[in-house]
């Protein structure tokens, strides 16, 4: 049984947000909704200051609280560990939004699919991509399941110019994910929430 996930090497991340853009282009998410984003922080005091970057996405948690909270079963976990939403079952109760400590669930407000980014109605690309969405329901990162099913890696992974995002299977014994986390003492976000995330980070 696979358990797909990702390791993000913060030493390699340059904060270019190419993953953010690649995800937007691949999934065509509506305005204001980003499955992948790079959280930027300026730390320290002058003259000893620096910027740190933290690329984020859905953690596809093994104990996904969003799936637990969903009253309809619209949010479910695939056998390969990807947490998905069947928007035809979603009632828009937003229980998953308040259940996810990482805020990686996104609600499509009424009217959001009626206008695109340009402000001049929806573009041909948006018309195609928006067909996958349903107003009044929730969406989330699918780990590019449509690409994974074809043997491809997620768009954010293949786009990263510094190979900071490493995609793989956690169940692979001594595979690249397990090895990297062991060697470089990897960590996950908000471990105190006990969600068993499948996205780990390596120190900068």
């Amino acid at each position: 049984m696979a358990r797909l996930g990702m390791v993000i090497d913060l030493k390699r991340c340059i904060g270019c947000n190419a993953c953010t853009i690649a995800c937007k282009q691949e999934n065509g998410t509506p305005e204001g909704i980003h499955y992948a984003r790079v959280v930027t922080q300026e730390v320290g005091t002058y003259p000893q200051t620096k910027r740190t970057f933290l690329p984020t996405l859905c953690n596809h948690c093994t104990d996904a609280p969003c799936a637990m909270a969903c009253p309809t079963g619209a949010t479910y976990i695939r056998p390969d560990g990807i947490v998905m939403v069947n928007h035809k079952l979603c009632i828009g109760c937003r229980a998953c939004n308040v259940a996810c400590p990482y805020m990686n669930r996104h609600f499509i407000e009424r009217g959001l699919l009626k206008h695109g980014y340009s402000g001049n109605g929806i573009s041909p690309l948006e018309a195609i991509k928006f067909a996958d969405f349903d107003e009044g329901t929730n969406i989330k990162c699918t780990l590019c399941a449509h690409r994974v099913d074809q043997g491809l890696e997620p768009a954010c992974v293949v786009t990263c110019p510094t190979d900071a995002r490493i995609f793989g299977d956690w169940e692979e014994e001594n595979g690249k994910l397990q090895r990297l986390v062991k060697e470089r003492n990897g960590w996950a976000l908000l471990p105190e929430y006990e969600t068993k995330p499948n996205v780990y980070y390596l120190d900068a």
Partner: protein
Amino acid sequence: MASQELLIAPHRFAVGYFRQTFWNWLIGTAFFLGGVGGGLFLVSLLTRHVAGMIAGFLIVVVGKNTAHLLFLGRPERFLAAARRPDRSWIARGIWAMGVFMVTGFVTILLQAHSALIHLSEPAADANFTLAAASALFIACYDGFLMRSSAGVAFWRTLLLPLLLFMYASLGGITLSLTLRELHGEIPPAGLKSLEHGLIVANFFLLAIYLYRMSRSLPAARETMRELVRGSYARAFWGLVLLMGLVATLLFSLLHSTLHVSVFVGLIAGCELLGDFSMMMLMLKSGLFGQQIAPTNNRATAF
């Protein structure tokens, strides 16, 4: 200035705590009406007060359900929410609501117009028990629902369902007393004292809740700070504590002594305002945890 002082994140690409904005005033209203309506029905059922039962039933069935339906993104699919009572408190709430609507209505008919309906004694007893149990469930399941919402640390305690149950009981008793006063009825012995006791108990429970949160996860501690000293402090101290508890108790004690009818409206108004404010503040002040790398903590210690 160290960036750790920027506690509330201005946008999704910045570091900091995020405010809970997904559950808005409609959900707050639904939770509030569920508590007050369920509490009123239960108190009225136990004290055999038909007007209170009808009012409680309508507050829950019309008020709470309307607010829930208005909130849903796809209200036409709401019945699908009953699919997973084994895992979801929303699903359990839908089932309880179904039971309450049937048994509550039958109970009111039996009490108000017994000629319209005939039930054998065991069936009437079972209906009474189910109506009471479902009203109790509706009055406090929202607390369990919020507690199970893992993202907001301030809600992750069993004290929350207890607090909502206590507020539901207080709201139910206060409204029951108000309705009786308006009808010129004498309230059952002890109901007034129970109201006073609940006000004091709620005060201590709130204090215990805040103390517990001050020793919980960082996001819960920050929420507590927001409530006590931050941007929600005025509403918390003024509406929840001063109006909702202190003024309610004061007016209630004055009414017990002076028997001036104007106090009846003041008691109900203050209690309901405090109850609603508490519910809304619980929702609005909730924060999601900061997503920061451990390296950031080291970096700020230059």
